[in-house]
């Protein structure tokens, strides 16, 4: 019976996977734990999804602009915090080397009447020169020339139902006439811009039509100037040239910085960014409490068994590893359904709100790391109970 089992050999016995064997025993509790962690992961995904949708929808307009540099009033903050400047500032830049063309854009909320129920809603109107390719949006490219006709507009496919079923009417081939700021207008085409947290719907029209609809706006005082550079021109170099001649009442940004400024506005100058960050923190805490409850009761229930292990000569470290492994298993098992459920919610939210809810790898990894941290923190609190497993108590 004497066997030399201490001999070292390349084929060592595989260690028992105690953590999994222990979790597997109480499958109902395992299910509760996995559900709780999934719930927390879904909450975090939703908060981050809303936050991401907010930011990506907020800059869809910015990114659609067909130009590398953007001129703005120095007091401009965001699409919902506009300031006007004279278009002469923009035309002055036409001669700067590297600038190919310039184009003024008018922006204003104006009143749109729902053709079905006559309710009036504010819509964000964009006035562009129909001869220029100012916005790189498929519907605009195809239809902008039709805007030369008086009182014609392009309507926002992604707008909410409050504005009337314009998209359906248009696609059915119906002629849509409604009133915008008391003028009768015709919808000539559709384009796609997602609603943002500040803008429910957009409307694109020509600069001349814009001034007819927004009678209170003065011709020549514009909101955004788009500078299109020659092919191969160095953006930073042209920007430096432009800034040489720049009066104090206007600023020029690259398109990327223009979009970043919009995101920064929503993040810091409104409560929205904070709200979603807090949502993530709360989801994290809820998840951590759930995992803690599960691990704590698991440790408590197995305390005599842990004491037995200690009495057999296992180090505390071994038991700590078991609990930490359990928490990592729970994190992984809870995370996978969490991602899938979150993807479903993203789709449903997109249908309901038209917000651009999209999942990206960075967010998946971020939430996975948050879930891991959540479970490890809970395990760290729960293992304090392990110290009370006294091997002397097993006799």
């Amino acid at each position: 019976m004497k066997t030399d089992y201490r001999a070292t050999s390349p084929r060592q016995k595989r260690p028992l996977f105690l953590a999994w064997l222990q979790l597997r025993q109480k499958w109902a509790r395992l299910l509760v734990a996995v559900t709780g962690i999934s719930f927390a992961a879904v909450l975090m995904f939703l908060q981050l999804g809303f936050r991401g949708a907010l930011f990506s929808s907020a800059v869809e307009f910015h990114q659609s602009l067909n130009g590398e540099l953007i001129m703005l009033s120095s007091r401009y903050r965001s699409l919902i915090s506009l300031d006007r400047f004279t278009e002469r500032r923009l035309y002055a830049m036409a001669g700067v080397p590297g600038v190919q063309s310039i184009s003024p854009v008018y922006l204003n909320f104006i009143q749109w009447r729902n053709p079905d129920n006559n309710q009036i809603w504010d819509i964000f109107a964009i006035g562009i020169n129909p001869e220029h390719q100012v916005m790189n949006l498929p519907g605009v490219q195809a239809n902008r020339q039709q805007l030369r006709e008086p009182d014609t507009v392009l309507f926002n496919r992604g707008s909410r139902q409050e504005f009337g079923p314009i998209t359906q009417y248009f696609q059915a081939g119906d002629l849509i006439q409604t009133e915008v700021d008391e003028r009768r207008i015709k919808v000539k085409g559709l384009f796609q811009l997602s609603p943002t947290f500040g803008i429910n719907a957009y409307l694109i029209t020509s600069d001349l039509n814009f001034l007819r609809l927004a009678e209170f706006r003065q011709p020549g005082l514009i909101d955004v100037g788009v500078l299109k550079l020659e092919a191969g021109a160095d953006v930073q170099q042209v920007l430096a040239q432009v800034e040489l001649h720049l009066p104090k009442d206007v600023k020029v940004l690259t398109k990327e910085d223009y979009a970043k400024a919009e995101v920064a506005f929503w993040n810091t100058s409104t409560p929205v960014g904070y709200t979603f960050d807090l949502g993530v923190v709360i989801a994290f805490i809820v998840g951590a409490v759930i995992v803690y409850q599960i691990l704590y009761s698991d440790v408590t229930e197995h305390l005599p068994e842990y004491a037995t292990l200690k009495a057999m000569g296992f180090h505390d470290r071994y038991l700590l590893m078991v609990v930490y492994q359990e928490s990592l298993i729970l994190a992984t098992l809870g995370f996978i359904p969490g991602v899938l459920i979150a993807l479903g919610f993203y789709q449903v939210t997109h249908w309901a709100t038209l917000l651009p809810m999209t999942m990206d790898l960075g967010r998946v990894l971020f939430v996975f790391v948050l879930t891991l941290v959540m479970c490890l923190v809970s395990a760290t609190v729960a293992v304090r109970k392990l110290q009370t497993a006294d091997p002397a108590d097993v006799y």
Partner: protein
Amino acid sequence: MNLFPDHETQEATISVNSLNHYYQQGSRKQVLFDINLEIHAGEIVLMTGPSGSGKTTLLTLIGSLRSVQAGSLKVLGCELLNATQAQMTLARRNIGYIFQAHNLLSFLTVYQNIELALELHDVTAEVADTRIKQLLTAVGLERFSHSYPRELSGGQKQRVAIARALAGEPKLILADEPTAALDKQSGRDIVAILQQLAKEQNCTILLVTHDHRILDIADRIIDMEDGRLSQEVPPLQPRPGNLSPGIEQ
């Protein structure tokens, strides 16, 4: 520091000198008084005595489960007075424990419960498997290797506990009332197995019991009363076999 020098059997397996122990709950209460005891390799020693007399306290001290406060306690050549937690943990690995409650891990099969004891030792997969199967055969449970403890009777669980205690080939087995929860026949079977396996492995056994049905297996019986070891009483009848101190394999 080598905690476990290759000691020869001349040295006592357990050597207790002037051991005193106190419990510090509220008032300081002494539970063990000037204990002196030597147990030699291969001996089977039974400890009897009324409840609360300090038997279990002495057993947990010898088992390195409780810190020694005063006096000297050497187990398998290792002084446990002033031993660190890590040293105490290592000392336990050379001791096999059998508890009154079997203390098997409920979420492990019979096979895995025995395998767990081998986690602490550097073994190959084949050696571990052979060893576990040998032990299961020895305790008559080879058909139950994939059962869970809840599916076994009390006697069967205690037999698994014995197999687990012996898996690491300990030089010392400490048992606390291993037959208390068992009927007469199971109790007899348990001690018979224990005696048989201990003999095969030249293993020392210290067994605390109230059970008069098993006193006959002892080489020696010691009696504890009010924290003092009384004069050793001779075994009720001479044991068959000759597991005397110092025997070589």
